[in-house]
């Protein structure tokens, strides 16, 4: 609860700090301090210390799981600002406002991690995405950024409309917005109209697929991720996407029984389509940024495995997956921002000119591909293990398909490594500061740490 209140307040603080100072370095440091405060406030909740104790009237169900996800999201944002903070203030002349918007996004993320009511789901999604429309279009003179912002906005608002229709139909069938009450609501069984409920859930499901960019509703993703300023793409592809998955899993953890067998078939189709579209299209991309956009669709396919299995391993696994994926993607984008040329050829010979950047980039890509000894391996392992646990023939086939597509993903990740190490060329980068190198090393260290000991992260959760 602290995180929700503090993220909104600190966003306002960031906004006012823009009036007091225009020094970009100072603004970045204020943002780092505010994020640390937010992290402390959230950790205080772990230990049952509340700033304000509010009766939320069943709107929220605060629990350890939500708090732990908040901790992961805030820490990832902290690392993100630590690595790319200098590039955030460089996007335009409103450095403090960008950070303020990032705080407002975090407010939405923290709402989504512990909502217990469809009203809060709706508000969380909106608080999370509206600032993102602005961040996407923050490079105001750049036509690509404009186009991405308009496309993201129209698609986002459209999917919100669909979600609201779903919520209205669910309300019609059950008479309540609570996410659990729908199963056990006996008071108005007289009026219960199951068909409305199923249609409503389908509407909400479709709109959530829009938000997490799963096929067949992924078509906006590559364009938006490509057009947005790279620093904000990094944020959108990691923290925001993970929050969407947490929301999706919380919603359907209670509801899948009502949808019955058809639901699993539908989900399998969505997973396979997402993996197929993401991986196969990524193979043909020449621009690394666009390749990463498609790879983020492919990773979304893997995260959907948790929605299919819905057991304990999946709950742990999705936390590990979001951590591994966020760390690796933040690092990859941080290096991408420093490159002069965003195409694959732009990376040629990076190992000679910037050996450290090439080495850490290799670790990030290994983690994204799921090579052992990196966090990505155990993340994928947990996802596949959770599907195996559900039993049945479909589970085995799903795992085989998952492994096959993980192998496909090796191809396009290794193309970047090949360009860096085995091709001649002089990859031009902008100025690399020692603190940037240190931040990259920190990210790489965390990835290796969670790859060697995934319990180090999950142990924190059970602690």
């Amino acid at each position, binding site marked *: 609860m602290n995180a929700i209140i503090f993220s909104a307040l600190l966003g306002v603080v960031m906004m006012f700090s823009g009036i007091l100072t225009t020094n970009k370095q100072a603004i970045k440091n204020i943002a780092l301090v505010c994020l640390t405060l937010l992290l402390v406030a959230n950790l205080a909740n772990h230990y049952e210390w509340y700033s304000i104790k509010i009766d939320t009237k069943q709107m929220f169900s605060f629990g350890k799981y939500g708090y732990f996800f908040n901790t992961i999201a805030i820490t990832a944002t902290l690392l993100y600002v630590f690595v790319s903070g200098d590039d955030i203030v460089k996007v335009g002349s409103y450095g403090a406002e960008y950070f303020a918007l990032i705080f407002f996004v975090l407010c939405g993320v923290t709402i989504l991690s512990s909502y217990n009511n469809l*009203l809060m789901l*709706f*508000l969380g999604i*909106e608080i999370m995405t*509206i600032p993102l*429309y*602005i961040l996407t*279009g923050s490079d*105001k*003179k750049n*036509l*690509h950024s*404009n*186009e*991405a*912002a*308009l*496309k993201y*906005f*129209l698609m986002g*608002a*459209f999917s*919100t*409309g*669909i979600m*609201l*229709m779903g*919520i*209205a*139909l669910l*309300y*019609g069938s059950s*008479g*309540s*917005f609570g996410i659990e009450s729908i199963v056990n609501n006996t*008071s*108005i069984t*007289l*009026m219960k109209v199951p068909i409305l409920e199923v249609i409503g859930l389908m509407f909400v499901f479709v709109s959530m697929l829009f938000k997490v960019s799963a096929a067949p509703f992924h078509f906006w993703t*590559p*364009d938006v991720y*490509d*057009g947005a300023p790279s620093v904000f793409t990094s944020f959108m592809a990691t923290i925001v996407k993970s929050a969407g998955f947490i929301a999706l899993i919380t919603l359907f953890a209670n509801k899948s029984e009502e949808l019955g067998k058809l639901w699993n078939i539908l989900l399998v189709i969505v997973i396979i389509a997402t993996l197929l579209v993401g991986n196969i299209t990524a193979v043909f991309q020449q621009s690394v940024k666009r390749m990463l956009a498609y790879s983020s669709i492919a990773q979304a396919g893997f995260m959907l495995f948790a929605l299919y299995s819905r057991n304990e391993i999946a709950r742990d696994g999705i936390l590990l997956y979001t951590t591994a994926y966020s760390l690796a993607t933040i690092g990859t984008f941080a290096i991408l921002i420093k490159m002069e040329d965003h195409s694959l050829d732009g990376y040629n010979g990076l190992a000679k000119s910037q050996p450290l950047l090439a080495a850490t980039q290799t670790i990030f890509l290994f983690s994204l591909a799921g090579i052992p000894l990196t966090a990505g391996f155990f993340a994928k392992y947990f996802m596949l293990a959770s599907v195996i646990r559900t039993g049945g023939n479909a589970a085995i086939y799903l795992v085989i398909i998952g492994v096959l597509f993980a192998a496909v993903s090796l191809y396009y990740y290794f193309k970047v490594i090949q360009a860096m190490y085995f091709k001649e060329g002089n990859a031009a980068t902008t100025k690399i500061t020692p603190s940037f190198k240190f931040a990259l090393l920190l990210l790489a260290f965390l990835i290796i740490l969670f790859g060697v000991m995934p319990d180090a992260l999950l142990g924190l959760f059970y602690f």
Partner: protein
Amino acid sequence: MPIQYYIYLSLALFSIGIVGVLVRRNAIIVFMCIELMLNAVNLLLVAFSKMHYNMAHLTNAETTVGTEGQLFVFFIMVVAAAEVSVGLAIIVMMFRNIHSVDVNFLNRLKN
């Protein structure tokens, strides 16, 4: 009036909105169609709210069932207003750069 009429009317408005979003090329009109979708939802929520109230009223005269449906409508209005301000700002930004609000412009990133 029976609830079915409200459901048919709001589904019709919603469908008009969806078709408008998919067919029209002018960003402002697409935007208006999205608003139409939201308003169809508002109508449906209010109708359902009244329906649940009437059902509960039969057994308990002092019931407050159905209030939350109307509360939700207020939230939708507020969020839609916030979305309008951001959306129009984005459309104005685009208009300043290309002097058009045609959605067909949105094809440059494909290549």
